[in-house]
């Protein structure tokens, strides 16, 4: 926990500082728990993209437990709030691996959220756990997307299966699945082109890729990971729902938490879709991928 914190704090600049001081002020400045304090808490949550409805619900829960536990100290209120949020986020939820190799992960999400970068980082981290990894360049649409993945592959010395631009992504996945089977590779990470969740045909294309995986590795895919940009607002909920409909998302990777956005929308997501957050991205480097720890996330909201 300390690790992430210092890392995050390292990366914080002036914009964030003002905000932190302000929030600290809420809890240490005020002498007693009153309506103003609740209102300010509401403000903090909304400004972290938690969303109006979820915010009101959290505040309601807080009021209830304040009453029940007879809390009167604003500082304790802060801890209580974090606890509520941690509870809402559920348990830590590590990646799932196949009982018998290969493990196959499908990575999906809208355009520009960080799918390819995350795959690069994840490849490195799996490799450092002693696993052999292969990448599949399933983004055959965006210009130079395969080249981008290939460079990430080189950075950690991991192979990349690719075809030419415009090729059928399901065919790339098929090739890669054959390759992991014949080469006895432990984990296959399949990249996909970014797509907006309201594009029906593109979502169907994803389902097709998933079917190919299911056919070739019947126990897979072992994770379908939706990459979410932490700067996204309430639309993220819609993203989760529609991707879930198309490919049964099993986990979320929340990227760009090194910025000033807090990614509070994942709280709303827990209320509405119940997809656990598994990993977070905190930079553009090879090592900037971390497990998602609910407690830490709650702390960061009020950091």
């Amino acid at each position, binding site marked *: 926990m300390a690790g992430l914190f210092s890392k995050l704090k390292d*990366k*914080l*600049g*002036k*914009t*964030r500082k003002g905000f932190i001081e302000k929030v600290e002020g809420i809890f240490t400045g005020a002498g007693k728990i009153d309506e103003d304090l609740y209102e300010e808490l509401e*403000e903090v949550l*909304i*400004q*972290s*993209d938690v*969303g*109006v*409805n979820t915010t009101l619900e959290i505040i309601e829960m807080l009021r209830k437990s304040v009453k029940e536990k007879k809390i009167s100290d604003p500082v304790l209120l802060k801890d209580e709030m974090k606890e509520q949020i941690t509870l809402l986020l559920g348990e830590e939820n590590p990646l799932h691996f196949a009982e018998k190799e290969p493990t196959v992960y499908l990575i999906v999400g*809208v*355009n*520009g*959220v*960080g799918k390819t970068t995350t795959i690069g980082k994840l490849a490195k981290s799996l490799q450092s756990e002693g696993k052999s990894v292969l990448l599949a360049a399933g983004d055959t*649409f*965006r*210009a*130079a*997307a395969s*080249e*981008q993945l*290939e*460079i*990430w592959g080189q950075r950690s010395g991991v192979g990349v299966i690719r075809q030419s*631009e415009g090729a059928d992504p399901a065919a790339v996945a098929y090739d890669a699945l054959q390759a992991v089977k014949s080469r006895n590779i432990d984990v296959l990470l399949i990249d996909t082109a970014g797509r*907006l*969740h*309201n594009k*029906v*045909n593109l979502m169907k294309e994803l389902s097709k890729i998933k079917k190919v995986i299911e056919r070739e590795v019947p126990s897979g895919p072992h994770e379908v990971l939706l990459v979410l*940009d932490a*700067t*996204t*607002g*309430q*639309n*993220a*909920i*819609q993203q989760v729902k529609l991707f879930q409909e198309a490919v049964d998302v099993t986990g979320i990777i929340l990227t*760009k938490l*090194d*910025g*000033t*956005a*807090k990614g509070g*929308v994942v709280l709303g997501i827990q*209320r*509405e879709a119940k997809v656990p957050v598994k990993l977070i991205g905190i930079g*553009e480097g090879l090592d900037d991928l971390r497990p998602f720890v609910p407690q830490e996330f709650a702390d960061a909201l009020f950091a």
Partner: protein
Amino acid sequence: MAMFEGLSEKLQATFKRLRGKGKLTEADVTEAMREVRVALLEADVNFKVVKDLVAKIKERAVGHEVMESLTPGQQVIKIVHEEIINLMGANESKLEISPKPPTVIMLVGLQGAGKTTHGAKLAHMLKKQGKQPVLAACDIYRPAAIKQLQVLGEQIKVPVFSLGQDSPVKIAQESIEFARKNGNDTLIIDTAGRLHINEELMDELTNIKEKVEPHEILLVVDAMTGQDAVNVAEAFNQQLGLNGVILSKLDGDTRGGAALSVKAVTGCPIKFAGVGEKIDALEVFHPDRMASRILGMGDVLTLIEKAQQNFDEKKAKEMEEKIRKQEISLEDFLDQIKQLRNMGPLSSVLEMIPGMGKQLKDVQIDENEFNKAEAIIQSMTPEERKKPLVIKDSRKKRIARGSGTTIQDVGKLLKQYEQTKKMMKQLSGMPGMGGGGASSAPKGSKKGKKGKKGGQGKKSPFKLPFPF
């Protein structure tokens, strides 16, 4: 989930008990403002921006005379809409063109916002307007970013200036020389995505700015951005002094409140909107329409304009006549499909119809179905198109083969055609044939219960003479 419900619907409900006319009271307005606040926040307008806006609207609304033709709810909507347009700006804004070429445009923004794609789209748009643009590849950090720009440049036949991984400041500087030497009148500089709190990289942008003195520094902002949009826009604006904004990924289903936030904190106009992944999916930004979208009121204006552009008046008249007499043929059916398709992706057309926005969340429009329908009708003989009743099994088989579909597909289309005809019977009895038609896409099967109810009941301020 109580996803965003149309604000107009909510306000109407709030004011239901208020039948009488007269002045808006403070209590009425306060209640209405609660809904407005929630609506704006759910649309991702920044908290502080909402606060200011609501205060302003409230001040204006209390004591306001309710116009003869409006209900109190509508009156409040009108004020809200006007104030948002006030903030958004009412008019489109153009690019600054330098009298002394090249005009230099610099694109900046966070990672993944869409700078590279929009650089190419902009170049393509300018080229179509007769300009001779060149692109400069200053993103030396993201793997294969230069290659991406080069591939796009090749696609649109626009030169790309690059010095590999050399310093971005130097690349920008030399790209001006390149433009001058090669007679390029517009230079578009693509820069790497960066966090607004990364001082080193923000300083790099200032250095580029000082060396090339761009005429336009445009911030590319993802339309799905949440509350943080204000921090980002403010930081880039303070560092560089922005001239405008490009709002990307507006073809999604986000309400796009970030547009309002960014405008409010920078004062910069939003000049363009990205509406798709294709290279020509770039539009001049219409602030007034965005105001309606954020409020969930249906982008009526866009629809009207598009309809006007694409719909031949005379044909419309003929069609109305036919609808009245209920003698529409499959030929007309095909015509209508083509008309609709000319207006852009069907989902975006339907989204612009008031009351449809919400339903679209549940209704999936499948463009494939339209392709199929077109192919099927095109495989019919003229006689079959005029009198679909003659199409029996053997003809169905032939048509299916000719259009690369199945007999079931042909049967389904014929059924939809019959349903459409039936629906016209109802429609022809309705004055103005409003949005009613819009809810029953030929997709029929998937339109869902909600679609029916909302679509037909709603009165639409304009005529929409489409059978579906």
